[in-house]
């Protein structure tokens, strides 16, 4: 892979409205926190997409290794009883 010459990368998470989850929007280059926020604002919130931004240094993210997928994720696949689908949803609870 070619070396990236354009400053460090930051992962950007955008909250679309107060109370909503922060969703990963993409990444930006920036020299520090302040510029990361400004670049994230300019890159991902130009059309009213968000009300709040988190920017996290990419290097600080702990990511799982695709080689570990068997160990990490397969054991859950055949155990339906782990799923909370056998309950009646309480009335009014929309975001479970």
């Amino acid at each position, binding site marked *: 892979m070619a070396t990236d010459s*354009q400053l460090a990368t930051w992962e950007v998470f955008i909250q679309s409205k107060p109370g909503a989850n922060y969703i990963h929007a993409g990444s930006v280059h920036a020299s520090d926190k302040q*510029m990361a926020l*400004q670049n994230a604002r*300019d*890159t991902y919130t*130009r059309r009213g997409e968000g009300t709040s931004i988190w920017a996290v240094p990419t290097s600080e993210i702990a990511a799982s290794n695709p080689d570990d997928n068997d160990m990490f994720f397969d054991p859950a696949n055949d155990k339906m009883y782990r799923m909370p689908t056998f309950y009646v949803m309480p009335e009014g609870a929309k975001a479970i």
Partner: protein
Amino acid sequence: MTEQQSLFNYCLRLGDDALVQSYRLSEWCSSAPILEEDLALTNFALDMIGRAQALLSYAGTIEGKGRTDDDLAYKRGERQFYNHLITELPNGDFAFTIARILFISAFEYSYYNALQHSSDATLAAIAAKTIKEIKYHLSHASEWAIRLGNGTDESHGRLQRAINSLWMYTGELFEADEVEASLAKVNICPDAPQLRTNWKHQVESVLNEATVTIPKDEYMQTGSRLGIHTEYLGHILSEMQYLQRAYPEATW
């Protein structure tokens, strides 16, 4: 000059400042040092297009001869443009562009803050909308100036050269001729000369943090409010107005 003529001329000044800045910023599209900055600068250009539209439409209304914002943007010659000279200078390098945004947005921040209290309701409303945009332009340019100044010898040198060559174009921002003096009397426009002290404080605090030297106030370039420009405005207009000149009334 009647008050109506003064107000028309004044709206052209503000509108042209926004229009020409927008043109220069648009030139960064696809040429900025990083993609993020490409978006930032072209965002600023779009902010200023919006401001220019609002001000030039209002100018057309004041004039009362049925001219639209497009007519005023595309069908006036160089001598009928009243934008400050600093807005029309070529972009230079990235440091030059940042230094220009810093100088202009620091000025506009005080200016449009005051314009929000204009006795003219339309100008006050345009100012209230614009001030949020300007606040961000100023913040972005300040942060960049500080980083360029404290970056490498190369970035520091480029910022210092930009500051030095732009300084003589900053005096004009604080001029007030009889047009503005007459409008200031009835609280339509801010008193620009009064804003310079604040501007200097603001700019100095950024440049000090950027560790660059602030030039002495010597000769200041002037003329734009009379329609006298640098050689660069004609080139801008020849490109910007080409389509309307070659195919008058073309629409799509």
